[in-house]
């Protein structure tokens, strides 16, 4: 129980709060900001569970971003808003910012091997995120042509 709290609940709570902060910076008004924060927490929970029980981190990133994509598309259709904001903010905890930063740190330090391996891993991670989100978007667009205008 204790472990559950500190391993799963707290990181998701921090992700929620941090993304609400980013929502303010991105000028998301009204209830949308809480929806984004919740999406971020959900995505991170999926990522944590998946890295623990299922697969490596790139596959987990794919799964998590697919879940975030589905959540954002549903919310965008319910609220009749573009999906961009929800998706961008909810993906923030997963986004490989630290990876790019470390890669360029190695580059500046002249450590070419570590630079290249970190960079490639980061690009793979970002690609997995984008494929996951795009896949859900395309699937929903194909499957729900009647509701297409809702997400336009």
């Amino acid at each position, binding site marked *: 129980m204790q472990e559950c709290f500190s391993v799963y609940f*707290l*990181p998701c709570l*921090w*992700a929620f*709060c*941090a*993304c*609400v*902060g*980013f*929502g*303010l*910076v*991105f*000028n*998301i*008004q009204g209830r*949308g900001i809480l929806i984004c924060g919740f999406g971020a927490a959900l995505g991170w929970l999926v990522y944590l569970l998946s890295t623990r029980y299922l697969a490596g981190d790139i596959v987990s990133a794919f799964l998590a971003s697919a879940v975030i994509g589905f959540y954002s598309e549903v919310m965008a259709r319910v609220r*009749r*808003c*573009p999906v*961009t*904001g929800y998706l*961008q903010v909810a*993906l*923030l*905890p997963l*986004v*490989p*910012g*630290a*990876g*790019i*930063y470390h*890669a*360029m*740190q190695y*580059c*500046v330090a002249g450590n070419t091997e570590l630079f290249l391996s970190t960079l490639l891993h*980061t*690009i793979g991670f*970002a*690609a997995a*995120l*984008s*494929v996951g*989100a*795009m896949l859900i978007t395309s699937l929903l667009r194909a499957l729900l042509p009647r509701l297409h*205008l809702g997400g*336009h």
Partner: protein
Amino acid sequence: MDHDKLLNLGAELGRRLMTSGAEIYRVEESVERLLSAYGADPQVFAIPTCLIVSVNTPDGHPITRMCRIPAHGTDIELLERCNELCRHLCREPLPLEEAQALVDHLEPDRRQFPSWVLLLGYTAAAAFFSLFFGGGLRDCLAAALCGMAVGACLLFGQRFTGSNVFFRTLICSAVAAGMALLLVRAGLGQSQEYITIGTLMVLVPGMALTNAMREIMAGDIISGLTRTAEVLLVATAIALGTAIPLVFSSPF
């Protein structure tokens, strides 16, 4: 119908969509739908820095408008308003003058947070990301201070940092790393690593890299590559900026 006005309407709406941070495919699709709703057959091309819209008048004369897109942030409120107006106009095309007036009012009439709320946003983002990456409570406080400093640099420091994204990022990340170092030396923060990385989440172009990938997957290769190049540039600026305080502090 006056095709000059129609072209202006489409280009202005597209420009606002671009500056609010919409994806390329969304901009192209929205402008195309809008102009098609008015009965024109438009050609739209967008890359992150430029938007080109072209239509043919009924007597076959081609007219084109190009908008240069300045550096911009993300403004979801503006994006939602543009999108709403675009859908509204596609459903029932209003007379061009009325539609143009609505487009002109999009930007001044949108709701915006006052700058202290934005500063609070930067602070919260930095503080909670340092907790998120594994920092303790004291790191969180230190990161909040660093985040506030970076937010203040971004919001109020444009006169000093200039509009060049490379130098702005370099200065902001130098401020972040320098403050993290000072706060750790002063005894407030415990781990410089967690404080710095939490604060840098505000600057780091992870989102931009993911967007670049999404654009490449969506088929907008040029936009995707432009954004990838920008990501590498910004990341280099961050790496250089964080190295500055470390170099200067090492003799002490």
